[in-house]
């Protein structure tokens, strides 16, 4: 792996930028692997990286149906945060945020993490009480969360609509200073580059057709590029996960919905934080290029098609206009949708499923990007040891039989 540094930039500039090598190696499949990861998004690539780095399992393949980072990893609104309610969730998402904080250095790849803070804005005394409860829960769980007053909030987001006729005036809310945004593609590419340099095979255009099970245990996968042998499979395929595990007779508590996002034309800096309005469900941040990156709630129709529908667009954009009337002048550059895997308690499913040697990491719903480092770290732990890390144990599929749901939708009262 070529190490990236200021010095390497200068050296390559002097030689006319003719000697850069590809960041990662495009591999073709070998006959067998110690572990196979299905899905070359952020979670899959991170899984492969941590398998090689933490557990010294380097004979690993990442199988990606399209191109790496081309699914939800490349379709999200790039927010990272750990402002959750339940101790289990905070442990999980803060592990992720802590890994993000060291990621650029660890991977020698700038993921452009910008911890510009996030405000969840409330509009009624009742919502402020809920915010107070969540801020208290966050502090008890050992992460940085604080209640913000209306005056403090106005300094953070001076452009929000505080006019006399505003339907949702900002009364303050929850502030997490360590939250922020990161460059989504760079996270996938950085993990791919680091994994590839440790010997992981990243295989694109490789679709898994069948999981091969013999005697109740995984023995390989059948793909469009041939059959690969392995005794351990990790699936990190978001909305494609239910279809894969149904082949081995397992159903999951997952519905798939489209989640839309929007980007405006670039403008000068005017919003230097991430803002979510509880009243409208719309959230936004400004990218380094100056575009407004806008997201909101799910479409209401279950779908596998990567496109959004008009009612959800109207809800999200009218919400934004209520928050920032000045943005009515902006033109939208792009609109897109990803297919997200939604679980009834809005928490992920991490753990073994079905035959021996098969593990899944899915159900992140609308919040998968922020969880990439933790999802990879925990799935790698499962693949390497066959058992849960203490942080992933509560998220096992068995919580639905035991009734121990981790209900973040009700717990934190915010859109995921």
């Amino acid at each position, binding site marked *: 792996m070529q190490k990236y540094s200021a010095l390497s930039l200068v050296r390559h500039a002097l030689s006319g930028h003719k000697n850069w090598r590809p960041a990662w190696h495009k591999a073709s499949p070998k006959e067998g692997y110690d572990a196979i990861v299905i899905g070359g998004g952020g979670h899959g690539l991170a899984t492969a990286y941590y398998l090689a780095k933490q557990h010294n399992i380097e004979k690993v393949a990442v199988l990606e149906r399209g191109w790496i980072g081309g699914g939800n990893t490349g379709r999200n609104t790039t927010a990272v945060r750990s402002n959750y309610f339940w101790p289990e969730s905070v442990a999980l998402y803060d592990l992720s945020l802590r890994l993000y904080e060291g990621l650029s250095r660890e991977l020698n790849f700038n993921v452009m993490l910008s911890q510009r803070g996030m405000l969840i804005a409330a509009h009624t005394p009742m919502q402020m009480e809920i915010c107070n409860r969540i801020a208290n829960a966050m502090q008890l769980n050992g992460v940085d969360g604080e209640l913000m007053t209306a005056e403090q909030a106005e300094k953070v987001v001076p452009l929000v609509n505080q006019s006399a006729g505003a339907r949702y005036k900002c009364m303050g809310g929850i502030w997490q200073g360590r939250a922020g945004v990161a460059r989504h593609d760079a996270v996938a590419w950085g993990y791919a580059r680091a994994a590839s340099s440790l010997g992981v095979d990243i295989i694109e255009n490789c679709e898994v057709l069948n999981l091969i099970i013999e005697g109740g245990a995984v023995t390989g996968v059948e793909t469009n590029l041939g059959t690969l042998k392995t005794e351990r499979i990790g699936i990190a395929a978001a909305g494609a996960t239910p279809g894969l595990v149904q082949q081995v007779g397992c159903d*999951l508590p997952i519905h798939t919905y489209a989640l839309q996002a929007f980007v405006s034309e670039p403008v000068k800096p005017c919003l230097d934080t991430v803002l979510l309005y509880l009243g409208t469900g719309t959230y936004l941040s400004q990218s380094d290029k100056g575009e407004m990156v806008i997201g909101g709630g799910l479409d209401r129709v279950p779908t596998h098609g990567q496109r959004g529908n008009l009612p959800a667009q109207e809800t999200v954009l009218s919400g934004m206009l209520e928050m920032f009337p000045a943005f009515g002048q902006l033109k939208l550059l792009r609109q897109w949708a990803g297919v997200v895997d939604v679980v009834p308690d809005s928490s992920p499913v991490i753990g073994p499923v079905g035959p021996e040697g098969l593990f899944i990491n899915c159900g992140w719903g609308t919040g998968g990007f922020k969880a990439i480092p933790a999802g990879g770290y925990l799935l790698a732990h499962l693949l390497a040891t066959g058992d849960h890390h203490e942080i992933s144990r509560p998220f096992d599929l068995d919580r639905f*039989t035991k009734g121990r749901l981790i209900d973040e939708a009700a717990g934190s009262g915010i859109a995921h």
Partner: protein
Amino acid sequence: MQLFRCPFCGLRNETEFLFAVEAGHPRPEPAESVSDEEWARYLYLHKAPKGHAREIWLHVTCGEYFVLDRNTITREVLSSEALPGIET
């Protein structure tokens, strides 16, 4: 804006409808002999089919549940019918 057909009211705006559950998901009976696994399966586990799906939807404005046949990739609606035994 997509239109769905309610078997009772005809074509209506998609925002009037709510997805309820995948069809063919009967409640296990009798309750006292249902295991935790069966109950969890009934409450939580789905197929999330890619392509043709048969689902129960609620038309919120008239309050009737009905069966909707859809394609979950293209969003095309194939047919809608009343639940078995219900006259439209």
